[in-house]
Structures are given as structure tokens and as C-alpha cells.
């Protein structure tokens, strides 16, 4: 019934260059600060509805985001704030979207669970578990048919591995040899139920890879060097025409599933074990050990907070959306009109 032990990634043979590592660190710190602020705003009643934080899972979003080129496509779940920021989307419109403001990334029509920024090739966050794996295939198929070298990366949770759409998507991607990277963020819980209690295999994604003719890959999802390395390999494999990959990144969410859920259903020692492996202090320590100065890191951290502060103010300053948009964009150029 308890979650399986994480697979430790092999020690890096060649660590990423220092500028890459600093960017990875910056990304993770910004994600963390952004989401901590979102949580505060939720408690203050300024973020309405629901929101699903990826606190603890930043090394996955950062490692993959860093390995992608601007022309590549991202598909994410409702737990998609970090993946959105990883593509370079500015914080203010994301924060404003969480707050239901006019300046929101989708002007408030989508909400936290559906962050989308086509300009950044962040092709959407999807809230029906599993569905977007099939949609991501479509982008990859299109890339292939259009003769481009774009790669599509699709993130999903451990729980998604048991829904039918997962199976259909993986098989089609393999048969059509699509430039796809499927990334299962195995945080060991699907809402309030441990994945191990409802899954026939220990590694919900990796143990299914052979069912699609794919190689099982697990990676330490709390180690940004490891995720970056695995991401680079899979993304470039896809770009080179090698077909899809399925990667299982073992990680953990520090908080609850959504909103104010305290996550108390999880065994305390499990939580403590994972908190001790928080990807951000872990990476910070590694950078210091590699000779990065404390001042550089503090600089990153201070800039991050300032960025989040500014984004928060900008979002707060935005009014609620104009009600006229309720009936816009159901159809192209025709609003919601269904009659002639």
C-alpha cells in the first residue's frame, strides 16, 4: 500500500554546463515562489475555485522545459503552472488567470486548470485525466506530416496510467513512430489514494513501456540534472526520428492534491523522507559544491521573489473580465451564436 521507493538516477557522467545549471535553478526557484504565492492568494480568497500545485515536483518541469526548443510543444495537466512557466510564459498573466481577472492568460475563461499559451507552444493544460495524451499525439503527428523537427512533450500523473486514453495514446504514438515524449510524473498519489493500491505494477508508467514496444525509463524526478539529462536524450531521440519515449519521473508533491487539502492522508515518514529530498535545496547544495557562489544563488532567489511580487501586483490591479466575453470564442468570429 505504500508508495514504491524512488529509483535513483545514475550519477551524472557529464553534468550540464554551469549556465544551464543556473538556469535550471532559477526556473525551479521561480516556480516554487510563484506557487507559494498562489497558495497564499488562495487562502486570502483571491484565487478562486481550485488550483493544483506542483511544489516538490519542480525538477521535472525545469529539466524538461530546459531540454525543449522554442518550436517544441508542451501538453500538461491541471497541475500545469510549472510547465507553463517553463515555456517562458510571464507570471503576471498566469497569476491573473488564477485570480479570474481580465489580464489572465485566457482572460479568466479557462482558469488554473487550463493554462494555455499558444505563442509559447504551451498547447494547453487539460483537466480530464489522460485525454491530453491523445491530443499531444496529434501535435506530434502534425509535426511529422508537416516535415518539421518539432517535438511534443506531454506530462501526466501516475494516476493517468490506468485510464484507457493512456493506452490508446501510447500504442498509436508507437505505431506511427511519433516525435513524442510522454512524461509520467509519478508523485505516488492520485488525489487521496496511493497509486500502488490501484495499479497492477510497481511502476505505473515504466512497467507498461514494453506493452508499446518502448524501453522502460525511470528517472529521479527530484534531481534536475537527472531530469534534464533524461529529457535531452528523449527529446533529441524524438527529433532525430527515433520515435516516442515514455519516461517515469519519481517525485512527490509536498502539499495536498488541490486547494487547501493538507494531504494528511499520507504516512508521515513518507512525507518526511521526500521533504528531505526537496529538489530545490538539493540542487542548491550541489551548485555550491560545484563552486557556485552563495551570492549568485541569493541573487537568483531575490530576483525571483521580486518577479513574483510584481506579477502579483499586476494581477491584482487587473479588473474582472468584461462580461461580454462569456459569449465570445465558442466559434471563430461568431461568438456563441448557434442560429441563423
Amino acid at each position, binding site marked *: 500500500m505504500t508508495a514504491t521507493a524512488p529509483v535513483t538516477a545514475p550519477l551524472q557522467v557529464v553534468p550540464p554546463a554551469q549556465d544551464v545549471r543556473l538556469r535550471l535553478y532559477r526556473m525551479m526557484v521561480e516556480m516554487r515562489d510563484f506557487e507559494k504565492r498562489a497558495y497564499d492568494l488562495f487562502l486570502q480568497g483571491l484565487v*478562486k*475555485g*481550485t488550483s493544483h500545485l506542483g511544489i516538490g515536483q519542480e525538477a521535472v518541469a525545469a529539466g524538461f522545459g530546459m531540454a525543449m526548443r522554442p518550436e517544441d510543444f508542451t501538453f500538461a495537466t491541471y497541475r500545469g503552472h510549472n510547465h507553463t512557466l517553463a515555456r517562458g510564459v510571464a507570471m503576471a498573466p498566469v497569476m491573473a488567470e488564477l485570480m*479570474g*481577472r481580465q489580464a*489572465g492568460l485566457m*482572460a*479568466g*475563461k*479557462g*482558469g*488554473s*486548470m*487550463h493554462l494555455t499559451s499558444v505563442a509559447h507552444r504551451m498547447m494547453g493544460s*487539460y*483537466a*480530464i*485525466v*489522460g*485525454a491530453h495524451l491523445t491530443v499531444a499525439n496529434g501535435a506530434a503527428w502534425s509535426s511529422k506530416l508537416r516535415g518539421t523537427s518539432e517535438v511534443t512533450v506531454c506530462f501526466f500523473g501516475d*494516476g*493517468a496510467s*490506468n*485510464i*484507457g*486514453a493512456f493506452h490508446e495514446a501510447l500504442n498509436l504514438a508507437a505505431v506511427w513512430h511519433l516525435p513524442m515524449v510522454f512524461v509520467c510524473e509519478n508523485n505516488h498519489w*492520485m*488525489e*487521496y*489514494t496511493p497509486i500502488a*493500491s*490501484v*495499479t497492477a505494477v510497481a511502476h505505473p508508467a515504466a512497467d507498461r513501456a514494453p506493452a508499446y514496444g518502448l524501453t522502460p525509463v525511470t528517472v529521479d524526478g527530484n534531481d534536475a540534472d537527472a531530469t534534464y539529462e533524461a529529457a535531452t536524450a528523449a527529446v533529441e531521440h524524438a527529433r532525430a526520428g527515433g520515435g516516442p519515449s515514455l519516461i517515469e519521473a519519481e517525485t512527490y508533491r509536498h502539499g495536498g492534491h488541490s486547494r487547501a487539502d493538507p494531504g494528511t*492522508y499520507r504516512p508521515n515518514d513518507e512525507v518526511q523522507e521526500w521533504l528531505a529530498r526537496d529538489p530545490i535545496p538539493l540542487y542548491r547544495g550541489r551548485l555550491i559544491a560545484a563552486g557556485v557562489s552563495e551570492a549568485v544563488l541569493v541573487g537568483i532567489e531575490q530576483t525571483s521573489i521580486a518577479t513574483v511580487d510584481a506579477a502579483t501586483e499586476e494581477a491584482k490591479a487587473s479588473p*474582472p*473580465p468584461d*462580461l461580454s*466575453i*462569456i*459569449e465570445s470564442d*465558442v466559434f471563430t468570429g461568431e461568438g*456563441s451564436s*448557434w442560429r441563423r
Partner: protein
Amino acid sequence: MAEMTFREAVARGIAQEMDRDPSVVLLGEDIGAAGGVFKATAGLLEHFGPERVFDTPISEQAILGAAMGAAMTGLRPIAEIMFSDFFAVCWDLVVNQIAKTRYMSNGQVALPLVIRSSNGAGVRFGAQHSQSVENWAMAVPGLKVVAPSTPGDVVGLLAAAVRDPDPVLFFEQKSLYATKGEVPDHEIVGALGKAAVVRQGGAATIVALAAMVPRALAAADELEREGIETTVIDLRSLVPLDVTTIATSVAETGHLVTVEENPRLCGWGAEVSSIVAEENLFDLDGPIVRVTTPHVPIPAADALEDAALPSVSRIVDGVKRSLQ
């Protein structure tokens, strides 16, 4: 008599039936240990044990398939589909299998099962977690469809649904979970297909369902202040549909307004309207007005969501239009 919330009434209604009938079993995502994401099944695992309460993987087709197969072979399962939007991922089990198997087998197979689901908007969950889909089910022969508006009806209609020999889809409007009402302490068993006249008035008939019932009542209050007395009917059940209660009231008032959360096209309001336009046309003294959400997905932002759903003032306007 105890005051309880709508969500507590769900657990109370299920417990009543599980106590009575050992063949009633529960399954769904996060319904056991966690007591459900809306806490509507809280305490049931503790009380009835893991032999009767089952947490499942995220596999809605497998959930409904298990419920169907179990119902075919002697059990009375109550399955939860966490949000009614997720019916879309297991719609085949609902419409092609569960709804049709009794008919296709010429009555050999009985399917006494209940599928509960949180339905509707109002809690800022966005377009994929806020739909009202009770009319998707209404359109499919072989399904019974229920949507209570009060804690008391939750208990009574759940009991009726569990005891019914046919598949019943039981919609719990999620904006109602926190609302409260009095529920008698003794066993309660309602009846499917009986609407409730929750207010009497001669000027017009307002037919509403689930979360639209309290809104219709608020609109009736407002209309009363302007001297317009209306009848409000809480439909409670779409299949069977209490055509008699509606027709009787329309014969008295001559005016009909339907109020539903559904988007504009092909909702149950259209069905009710067209039944009256076919069977009681000459009772009408004015147009049948449907108040609905516009034909749009439900937007996430609070300001947008509130403005999209039928409001008290839109219902008031609708009644006035019907009185033209």
C-alpha cells in the same frame, strides 16, 4: 428530525440502504479512505468495511463495467463518477451497455444499479468540471434520471434509486453540497417520477431542477413583491418525468417557464416545453420561456461563471416575458 447538509444526506442515504440490504456495495475514486472529494461518502468505509466500499483506479469505464456486471449477477452497486463531466470518458458503458442491455436481452438481464455524480457549476472549477449533463442521460432510453434539491430528497430519492430495478443516474448538484435542510431520523424512501409543487401561485408555472430550485423560489419571492404569484415545481426526476404535475399547473396558470443550468440547446427544458406545446397548447396564454445558461462552456472566473448561469433576475425577466 436533524438538520444536515446535502453532502451529509448523501452518506446518510447510502448508509440507510447499505444497512438494509447487504447486496448494496459502493465503488469509485477516492470514495473510501478519503470519504469522497466532496466528502459525500465520509464514514462509509469505516462503517461498512472494505468488503463493501471500494476505492478504484482512475478508470471510469472499469468502474461502470464493474457496476454493471455486478448488477447483472446479484448485487446492487452504487458507483460514483466523481464529476459528471467524466461521464464523457465512460459514456459507452452508460448509453450503449447499461441503458440497452435489459432491452437487447428481452428482459433477461436486470440492472439494479445507481450511478451518483456531482453535477453542475457554481464553484469556479472551469469548463471541464462544471457541466450540467443530466439531459445527456435523459436523451438515452433505458436510464432513469434523478436530481434532488434538498437534503431530505437526497435521502428519499437515493433510497428509491437503490431499490429501483433499473439503472438510475443520480445527479448531485455540487453547488448544493453545503446547503442544509431538515431530515427525519427514521427510514425515508421517496418515489422516482414525482415532482414537488414547492410553491403555489396562479400567474405562472416555473419548473426547475436541483440548484435552480432555490433560485426559482427566490425569483418567486421577488415576483410576489411585484404582485405576481407563481407556482414553483421542483422536478426532482427527469425520467420518469412527472408530466401530470406540470400539465395540471399549466392548465391553471396558462404560463410556463423552465429554469435549467444546462446550455441552451436540447436541455430538459426543451423537452418539457415541447411536451406542453404538443399536449397542452391551448392552455397557454403566452410563450413558453426557457431560462438557461447561454450555449457556451462554463467559464472559470467567478465573475464570468456567475453571469453565465441563470440568475434570480433572469428568472424574473423570464416569467415576465412569459406573461406578455
